[in-house]
């Protein structure tokens, strides 16, 4: 089934031009081959009559051979161009879409599959743009062009051999529809296998701890076995098509060409040389169609991947970039939730009718048990998703009217679990403030109590932290996150359990750092432990997605005392 998407992939216009150029080269090469067959026929005729072969025939033959070599190289060269630009643009577009969809949507994507489609799927465009499509044009026109050439020598032979022309479209038509479905399934399976492999590799320590690694490995092997059967089934169809082509052309082309050539010679309409030319030309028809068969598999795969990628690029994002332009950004930094309800797609309400506000420079605590909906508030404020009902305002302006990048640049967020990118400690800190000097980075690390640890590492700030910082303890990762927030220096601060893995000796120092950070800024501090709130001037309780209680700081202190 064709997807409804009519949009073509980025850069496809440019690659079409290269595809046509490739096809043109292929066609030109084919004409050279026709020329070669005709010239060889002339040579045969001369020798049949024991006449000497004139020098110009040799030169003409040499010229045709040289030209065909050039066209063969040219076809390869343009084939490269047919996908080089498109691949780059398509990857860029996918990258943009990943950012566009954000964390709310990517939860339902499977990273491994997406990455497979982005990398290998895009590479598959090579086959469809550079090989299959041009050969499709050349292969389908080959019987016509060659019969025309034969027709010039002897119109009866040309006309009779024209019966071979529909063979290719018929055979392709017979197999193509079935083929497309199987090849789409094949690629879906490769994607799924990638996703599964990534999940398993990232969960290896857990699998190992429960001795479940072998079981997981054999489960994947079974999936791989299904994948293999799928592929073999696909190939059985593919090869059957090739078999039919092979046989059909042996009979239809070589056989027919032989019979026609022999009969026409007997009728005295053509010379021996022309008869040999006709047989040799029938070989060229077969060669062209064989090439089509050979690229069929890869080409269909490339087109299936193209459809998957287009489908992904057509996914609507969960939030829309603000369309209002020319406004001045709000200068006040107060945050207000007005009757906000929120649900993830296909789920029940995670937040219902939540209203609260944070004054500029105020610190507000948000207290709730695990799963009460605290993190959803963070997602909404950063516009990873929009509320189902109600609205959120920053400085009196609805969030949906503010440019996304500006909004996110105003908020420093210390998350429960921080993502550390592949790279050095310094690179991971610098993400928050690319222009930071070494001094600023160290200062932030000191304030976050992580400088001493970093300098104790063999290569200090240049130490590479493995993926997800596997060598770091939870507390160390959290302190890096705090250092990042300090470096970002944004007017609004979101603290989401910033110290859950940090020990108390350190927490006291960190709290000072956080307090200093909070000074004069608008702060929302989310936690499930009341005593980790320090400077909260007001406190809200979140229970099952509703705000059930609020207290001001006075009563909080009274209770603590």
């Amino acid at each position, binding site marked *: 089934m064709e997807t409804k998407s009519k949009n073509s992939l980025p850069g496809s216009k440019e690659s079409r031009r290269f595809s046509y150029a490739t096809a043109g080269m292929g066609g030109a090469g084919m004409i050279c081959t026709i020329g*070669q067959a005709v010239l060889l026929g002339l*040579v045969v005729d*001369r020798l049949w009559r024991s006449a000497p*072969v004139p020098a110009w025939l040799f030169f003409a*033959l*040499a010229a045709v*051979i*040289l030209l065909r*070599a050039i066209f*063969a*190289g040219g076809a390869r060269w343009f084939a490269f161009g047919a996908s080089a630009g498109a691949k*780059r643009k398509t*990857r860029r577009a996918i*990258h943009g879409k990943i*950012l566009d969809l954000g964390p709310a949507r*990517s939860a*339902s994507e*499977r*990273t491994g599959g997406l*990455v*497979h489609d982005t*990398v290998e799927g895009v590479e598959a465009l090579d086959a469809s743009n550079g090989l299959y499509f041009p050969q499709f044009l050349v292969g389908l026109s080959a019987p016509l062009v060659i019969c025309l050439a034969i027709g010039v020598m002897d119109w009866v032979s040309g006309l009779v051999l024209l019966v071979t022309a529909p063979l290719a479209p018929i055979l392709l038509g017979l197999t193509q529809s079935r083929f497309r479905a199987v090849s789409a399934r094949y690629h879906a399976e*490769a994607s799924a296998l990638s*996703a599964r*492999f990534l*999940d*398993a*590799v*990232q*969960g*290896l*320590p*857990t699998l190992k701890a*429960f001795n*479940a690694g072998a079981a997981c*490995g054999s489960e994947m*092997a079974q999936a*791989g076995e299904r*994948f293999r059967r799928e592929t*073999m089934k696909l190939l059985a169809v593919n*090869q059957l098509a090739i*078999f039919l082509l092979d046989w059909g052309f*042996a*009979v239809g082309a*070589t*056989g027919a060409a*032989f019979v026609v050539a022999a009969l026409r010679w007997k009728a005295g309409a053509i010379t021996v040389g022309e008869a*040999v030319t006709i*047989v040799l030309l029938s070989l060229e028809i077969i060669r062209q169609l064989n090439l089509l068969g050979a690229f069929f598999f890869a080409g269909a795969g490339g087109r299936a991947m193209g459809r998957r990628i287009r489908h992904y690029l057509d996914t609507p994002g969960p939030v829309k970039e603000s369309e209002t332009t020319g406004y001045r950004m709000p200068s006040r930094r107060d945050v207000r939730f007005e009757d906000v309800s929120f649900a993830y797609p296909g789920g029940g309400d995670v937040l219902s009718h939540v209203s609260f506000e944070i004054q500029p420079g105020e610190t507000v605590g948000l207290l709730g*048990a*695990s799963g009460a909906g605290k993190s959803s508030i963070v997602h909404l404020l950063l516009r990873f998703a929009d509320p189902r009902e109600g609205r959120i305002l920053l400085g009196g302006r609805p969030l949906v009217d503010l440019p996304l990048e500006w909004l996110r640049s105003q908020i420093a*967020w210390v998350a*429960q679990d921080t993502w550390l990118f592949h790279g050095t400690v310094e690179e991971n800190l610098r*993400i928050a403030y690319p222009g930071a000097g070494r001094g600023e980075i160290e200062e932030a690390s000191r304030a976050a109590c992580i400088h001493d640890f970093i300098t104790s590492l063999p290569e200090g700030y240049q130490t590479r932290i493995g993926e*997800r910082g596997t060598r770091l*303890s*939870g507390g160390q990762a959290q302190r890096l996150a705090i250092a990042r927030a300090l470096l970002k220096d944004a007017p609004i601060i979101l603290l989401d359990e910033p110290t*859950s893995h940090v020990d108390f000796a350190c*927490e*006291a120092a960190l709290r000072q750092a956080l307090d200093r950070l909070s000074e004069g800024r608008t702060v929302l501090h989310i936690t499930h432990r009341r005593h980790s709130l320090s400077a909260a001037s007001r406190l809200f309780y979140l229970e099952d997605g509703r705000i059930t209680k609020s207290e001001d700081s006075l009563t909080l202190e009274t209770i603590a005392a």
Partner: protein
Amino acid sequence: MTHRQTIIRLWQVLRPLRGTLGLSVAMRIVNQFLAVVLIVLAVWGVTAIARGGSSQMLWTVAFALAGLGMVKGIFRYLEQFSGHYVAFRLLADLRRQLFASLEAMAPAGLGRERSGDLVSRAIADVERVEVFYAHTIAPFVVAVVVPLAVVGVLAWISPMIALGLLPFLVLTGVGIPFAAHRIGTGAAGRVRDRLGEISARFTDVVQGIRETLVFGYGSRSEAILDHEGDLLASAQKTLSGCHVFQSTATEIGIGSALLVVVFLGAGEVLSGEMPAYDFPVVLALTLSAFVPLLGVTNLIPDFEQAISSARRLFDIIDRPCHESPCLAAVGGEPRSVGVVFDKVGFAYDDGSPRVLDRVSFAVEPGAVTAIVGASGAGKSTLVNLLLRYWREDAGEILLGDVPIRNMAARRVRELIAVVPQRVHIFNTTLRENIGMARPDAAMDDIIEAARLACIHEFIMDQPEGYDTMAHEGGARLSGGQRQRIAIARAFLSNAPILVMDEATAHLDERTESRIMESVRVWQSRDERRAVLVIAHRLACVRDASRIMVLEHGRVAGIGCHEALLDSCEVYSDLFAAQSGAAQS
């Protein structure tokens, strides 16, 4: 790994399927001979008719062509099918081996690997290797056998022409592919490595999407990807140049051969050494001698990539594994399940600071033992050593009376259930996420474990209950819910030693104390069960029968809460800091 070593390894992997492959090669040889016969027969037929052959002969040749065409088709079908059968069987096998090696290495051996790159190896590189098995071995054999046979037939017609053809066969069959190999080999390696790198980058962006957006890292990550894309494109351009060179050179080689044959053949016909009617047959033989060579020469860039991919696979599969020397159990079965750390010392790498230094303490069966200490003191490292993810440099760790280094790693892990600091939730149902701890567990056992971990009610509130998907990394679960899933896993596993590494950090106090109560209930069911709690919040550990205080990788004190308050300065400082914090 050199080219030759890689090819030898690929050949070794082939062992169980060499028979099938041999069959495939034989069928390809037959198929290619039939192709030659078809062409030559058709041309010979024309000349025979021209020499006065009868109509009956004409139809005999025509039916022979049709019949041979069908036989050729059948052989080609079987050849392709068996070739691919071999290839895909081996690919499944390579994937299995790759995962098994990764499993054996993790996590110690995987510190520098990037999971996105590993997936690229497991899926894309393995697929690339297919080219070697399905499209290299048979064509190479055929490319040697068939042209030589054709030259043999030609020599029978005219030794001179056969001799004239030979240098061109060597040039296109050996010279040009070798030159293409020299041009393409480096670029092919770069292409595979870049693709792995791009996979890793994309994985980083997708999984780190929150940080990418919040820090405005998107445009920079795009620039990095563009740069990687350029490096990939330039390597592919070189490979493509290799293709261009090869196509052009091969066409010229074949064309020159044809010219030489025409020249020599014309001379022989005119001088009367060869009858004129043999000349078209000689032409047909010449043209068909090169067909099998074309099959090989066009494959060189793909072949180079297949070798590079194979190298990337064997790089992982053949890597020596930390655990291998200890896979065989020599120490026997421990008689009790207490754990003793005896003067354990450890550093992650040579030259990096010592994480543990002469750490000695015991985890007694029937009791709750706790470890406290600042973050980075080495607490989690103790767990890593206990699970045999890494190996202690000094001292030893005993399970009962047996050093774990003498036990099978599998057996050690059977006895220990861990709730790690960083929980991994698999992208499958909640039931399977808990059930993975014990594959034979009944649904009732899973529910019981979930109840103990205080997560049953939450699960039942989900639209599909235990069959609800957890999403990647448990994306729709809160930190506390993820931790409770991990706790349920540990309860389910029924291992006699329970290790909880900051397992309740994301839970509110009420849930935390309910979980600690569950731990007591769990332990009371069998007096031999041992519990080790690692925490930085003293509230979780003050009831423990023994507390070990760890500071900078050294034991700063061992004892019960009261005793430590008196005797251990580090502990009393920690306690003071915390009670101070709790009151502020």
